[in-house]
């Protein structure tokens, strides 16, 4: 076991972890932006815009991510890491769009009327009045989506040979042949994922507790 957990191996895995976080972080940030645009399009009174957003969201909500990773890698033919970021962004944007739409819909319509009656411009109103209230509804779901994205980056090694955490783990595993060592490698890779995702899910729980609205049941 000693020769397995050397600094070289740990560092090898940690580099994979950095790539995992890098790809997830960029995809999550980009998909937050696109998701917001989709949510606003979906709520807009312009029926063409809202139809485009609806079709986009339905397509990506009902097909697997793995398919889009392959699609972008083989058909659009970007290099591996840009393919991954593009596929994750395109796919996650649909979920983010749904979450943000739900958050905006959860803000009572009286607030929109109040915002107009007080002479706020659309942008000001959305930023100062709607956004803080919508955030309260959205943050737990957005964090959960982030967890899902981080976990899903584990496809990338087997799908398009990007050496993220899972890939690095598999590479190490292929050099081993004793059962306990293989167990240990899987355990370590799992632990890395667990630490990050568990921390985020604690964040979800903390946020829900802190910002629970009185009289609201269920959440």
């Amino acid at each position: 076991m000693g020769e397995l957990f050397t600094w070289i191996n740990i560092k090898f895995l940690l580099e994979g972890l950095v790539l995992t976080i890098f790809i997830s972080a960029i995809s999550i940030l980009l998909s937050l932006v696109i998701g917001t645009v989709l949510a606003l399009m979906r709520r807009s009174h312009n029926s063409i815009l809202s139809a485009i957003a609806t079709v986009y969201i339905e397509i990506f909500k009902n097909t697997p991510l793995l398919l889009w990773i392959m699609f972008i890698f083989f058909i659009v033919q970007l290099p591996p890491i840009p393919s991954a970021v593009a596929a994750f962004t395109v796919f996650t944007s649909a979920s983010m769009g749904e979450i943000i739409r739900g958050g905006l819909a959860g803000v009572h319509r009286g607030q929109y009327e109040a915002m107009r009656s007080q002479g706020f411009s659309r942008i000001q109103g959305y930023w100062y009045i709607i956004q803080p209230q919508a955030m309260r509804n959205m943050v737990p779901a957005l964090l959960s989506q982030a967890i899902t994205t981080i976990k899903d980056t584990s496809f990338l090694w087997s799908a398009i040979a990007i050496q993220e955490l899972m890939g690095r783990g598999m590479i190490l595993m292929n050099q081993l042949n004793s059962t306990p060592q293989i167990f240990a490698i899987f355990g370590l890779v799992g632990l890395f994922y667990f630490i990050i995702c568990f921390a985020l899910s604690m964040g979800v729980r903390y946020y829900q507790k802190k910002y629970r609205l009185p009289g609201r049941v269920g959440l």
Partner: protein
Amino acid sequence: MFAAFKWEAYFEAFPTILMAFTKTIGISLLALVLALILGVIFGLMSVSRSTVLRAINRVYVEMIQNVPLLLQVFVMYAVFPLIGIKLSTFLIGVIAIGIYHGAYISEVVRSGISSIPEGQFEAAKSQGFSYIQTMSLVILPQAISIIMPPLAVQAANLIKNTSIMALVAGGELMYATNSFANSTSYYGPAYVVAAILYFILCFPLSRLALHLEQNRGRRRVKRKEYYNPAMTEFDEDMKNAVAEEGVSTWESSSRG
């Protein structure tokens, strides 16, 4: 990329793709059954009064939800044979995906049950109902309308997740699509048709989720109207808002 001869080649291979598609459906159905069983059992554990049962549920949910499904599949695929457990990829798919989504469904069941007011449990108890009677006759029938919409979302997610079996040569739709695409390099038709096939399975489920969600909003409003003939203007407004927007599925729909 989408030239006609590629489509011809694709449709010659289409029977194999369809066979693989039935395998996707098979894995999905059996995994869903397993996930439902685990979800209900662990969901009930999470609202039980026993600390031990609640702790077991927490460990299950956190362990499974915070580790990638693919890693769990790889453990069954690559590690289990080393200790003498050899499973077919079909069984690995059913078990791994069933256990994974069981954790999500148990959270759905938990939040459904905990949304039922305490008074309902007390009322059932005061009427001399046993635990099983309370749950099956009083609590679950009320919780079901809250549980159903996110459950349909979970079912759709489960179907999408069967695609990762392709990465362990699972022989299902995604695998067949990849192997056709890689052997012929006719990627276009293969991925487009696979997307359509997955869409055909998942779209009705996510529509169903939305439909149940919106109906629930309406039913609740109606009941309120019935009990509360003197509706204020605010109630009226709420009613319209609920009828228009439905209640959002965001929390449950985003996970998994």
